[in-house]
């Protein structure tokens, strides 16, 4: 089977432009979103630098205007900037055009409601229903919306960052940043100019077609270009963002790439002592170090199925002050101060603040945590036999604690594994983690069992 080139789901619309994702999809999805929103409310849009973003922008504008919404186009900006502008302008919602950590030929639409918050599963389901029914509220000619552009959205966003971070204190750090040819550079250059941060940017140029590397926030990508530069440049840390800068990854001052799994435990360690929230919401695939860190500060980890939608739904079932942090093992983290928006720039600034407060180097802070070893594999999917596989695994590993909210997770003290079907690619993912040495034998056994499915 060919790799999937179009994915229409609760997360929105995502696909390979031309091969899967077409102009027609974009227009109809925008009409559906315009129909879902309260009538006549303004909608904020922005895009990442992918070349196809211009085509998607035109379709999104047409669909929203046709359903009676005024459109505010922010141009090329990061997703958190769009979410910030939705709230600032009191808009009815927003659309982010960009495929985040996917390669250049992909593109996607992500939808936000009032206040810049993510659509709930119920709202996303309604959006899909409207899209599939194709019953759009197309307004009469004299009620069609108008388009305007806004050029200073990033400045307003940076203004809000300044309310939460003591930039005076962060100026002492020299930081190397790999922008992955994405939108983070636009924000970082303003931080540099306005607050005198010492930043060295690589892959800064906004690029539509050929990214310098896969824009993923994984340890492997950090190791590729960013990590080797940190020590020679005498920097205190290296950070890497995905294209729409909602995710972050890092390297130490020694030039050591850090696992993407560490972003969430580091931030939990930083924000839990500050209170008032004690809950950390994450999915069942992220590191168990998180429980250990939370325990130190009297916090609690809530684990939900993989995928942003589950985390977003979980978040809404608590009062905001109960929750300290929401995140994934991918370097995507939401903090309470930023009204729970996935924001890589805010995460970077929080980590630098942590270094400043502790007066310690990044490598020293990391050395405080016990070692956890994680192994990951992805194998071809044979959908029909997945239930059988999960039953078999549950039977054979029945001595552990079983979680079946998303595939199968089995926990033993200091060790766990998770087998699940990816929502974005036609693969089965196998993840094992153990406190200390890698759980090689368990991992090999699981991989072999999944492979035998074929």
């Amino acid at each position, binding site marked *: 089977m060919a790799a999937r080139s179009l994915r229409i789901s609760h997360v929105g619309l995502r696909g*390979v432009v031309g091969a899967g994702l077409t102009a027609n999809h974009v227009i109809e999805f925008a009409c559906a979103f315009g129909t879902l929103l309260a009538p006549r409310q303004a909608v904020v849009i922005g895009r990442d630098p992918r070349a196809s973003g211009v085509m998607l922008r035109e379709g999104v504008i047409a669909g929203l205007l046709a359903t009676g919404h005024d459109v505010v186009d922010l141009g090329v900006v990061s997703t958190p900037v769009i979410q910030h502008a939705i709230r600032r302008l009191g808009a009815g919602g927003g659309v982010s055009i960009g495929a985040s950590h996917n390669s*250049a030929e992909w593109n996607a639409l992500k939808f936000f409601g009032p206040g810049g918050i993510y659509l709930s599963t119920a709202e996303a389901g309604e959006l899909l229903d409207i899209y599939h029914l194709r019953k759009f509220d197309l307004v009469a000619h004299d009620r069609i919306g108008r388009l305007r552009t806004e050029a200073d959205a990033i400045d307003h966003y940076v203004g809000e960052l300044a309310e939460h971070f003591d930039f005076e204190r962060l100026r002492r750090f020299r930081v190397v940043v790999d922008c992955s040819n994405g939108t983070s550079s636009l924000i970082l250059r303003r931080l540099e100019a306005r607050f005198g941060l010492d930043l060295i940017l690589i892959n800064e140029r906004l690029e539509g077609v050929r990214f310098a590397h896969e824009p993923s926030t994984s340890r492997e990508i950090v190791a590729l270009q960013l990590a080797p530069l940190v020590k020679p440049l005498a920097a205190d840390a290296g950070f890497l963002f995905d294209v729409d800068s909602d995710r972050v990854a890092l390297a130490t001052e020694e030039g050591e790439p850090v696992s993407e799994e560490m972003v969430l435990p580091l931030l939990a360690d930083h924000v839990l002592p500050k209170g008032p929230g004690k809950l950390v919401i994450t999915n069942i695939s992220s590191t168990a170090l998180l429980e250990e860190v939370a325990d130190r500060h009297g916090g609690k980890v809530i684990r939900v199925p993989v995928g942003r939608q589950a985390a977003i739904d979980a978040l809404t079932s608590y009062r905001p002050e109960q929750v300290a942090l929401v995140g994934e093992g991918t370097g995507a983290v939401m903090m309470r101060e930023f009204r729970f928006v996935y924001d890589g720039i805010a995460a970077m600034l929080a980590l630098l603040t942590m270094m400043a407060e502790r007066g310690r180097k990044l490598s020293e802070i990391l050395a405080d945590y016990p070692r956890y070893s994680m192994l990951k594999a992805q194998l071809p999917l044979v959908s029909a036999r997945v239930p059988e596989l999960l039953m078999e695994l549950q039977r054979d590993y029945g001595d552990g604690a079983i979680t079946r909210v998303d595939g199968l997770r089995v926990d033993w003290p200091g060790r766990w594994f998770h087998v699940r079907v990816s929502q974005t690619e036609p693969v089965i993912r196998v993840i094992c983690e153990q406190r200390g040495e890698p759980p090689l034998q368990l991992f090999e056994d699981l991989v072999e069992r999944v492979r035998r499915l074929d």
Partner: protein
Amino acid sequence: MRGEHLLKIGVSGIRGVVGEFLTPGLACAFGQAFGTYVGPGRVVIGRDTRASGEMLQHAVTCGLLASGCEVIDVGVLPTPTIQIYVQASGARGGLAVTASHNPPEYNALKLFNRRGLFINSYERSELIDLYHQREFRHATNDEIGQVRAEYRTPKRLHFERVLAHVDVARIRRRRFRVALDAVNGAASLMACGFLREELGCELEAIHVDPSRPFPRIAEPRPDTLGELAALVRSCGCEVGFAQDPDADRLAVVDETGRVLDNDDVLALVIEAVLERRPGDVVVNLTTSSAIDVIARRYGRRVWRTPVGEANVVEQMLATGAAVGGEGSNGGVIFPAVHACRDSFTAMAFLLDRMAATGEPISRLTGRLPRFWRRFGTVTFEHGRLGAMMQALEETFPDTETDRSDGLKLIFDGAWVHVRASNTEPLVRLAAEADSPERLETLYGKVAGLLERV
């Protein structure tokens, strides 16, 4: 109104009531079909001032980009200005988002080839097939082009081309007092600049705010131009001009406040052109015989074509004609500027003629060959059209006929033209004669006959 008239996709392109009928999805698909048809390259797009224009332009642009075209956005502009720019810019083609003189709830796409001409009927049917078959080119990320804005050059280019053909200094010296009604359409700002700055007129302008809706019925006709006529009288203007929303058509009010017959406007402009340069004339079958009389004075030939701008333009290009148009719809075509209907060219030639002769527009009109005209419609049931035409021909045996578009019976000093509408089950009846009595007799006889069949 019957539902099918709210949306029409056919050989004339795509036209409909915006909202439930003409949707962004349709416009996008049509844009992608057009982009697929002209191939990856530059395409020019602009629009008139209708409220739905911005939305539709973005939808069409989305489709064009998806097909791999680069898009030049020229914004709100008259259709002739867009056509001239398409040709001059070396683009693969162009589109104007405009429903011309139709009511504001309508919109449509006008389609141009690389020469800035309406794509011909053969090209149109190929494009429609592409659209229906959904055989679109789908560009990948590295094939998708940009959108570039070009808001100044097209206007400048259009002015330069028109002004090269008239005596600008002579017109400016006269400091004509001119009234203008641009129906808040695409020419609102441009026509003010043209008349005031370029031609040195003292301008009294109404309805020149492109951000406001159409203040009157968009088609410039005697019954819709009362405000302009009143303005001409109250301000003592020497002439009044009225455009339609995309400024291809022009209507004219004389200094007494009388709205001129469209055939007379065409005759005046043709006379002005032939005064300045040699060449044949092309008009449609329904246009006044005054044109033949004028052309004869200059020793020029008149070619007649079926009704429709594309037909007239095709014949003009084939014969290398100097000027042409269609009397009934106020369109003047002067290929030395561009082979399209253009209200700016018409305004410039009329002012040039007034400056050259020193005579008021009413006197120039009064000297035109005098004919009387009457237009009407007769409804018919499907299947009866052929019988109507046969009965008509049998009633007038041994008469010269032209069957290239319906039936035209040509007498000495009079004619009758009967043709079926493209959009509705009715026949359009036009008659002209050299006296009012003869016209009434002829019109009454033919209309009565058609109704009896």
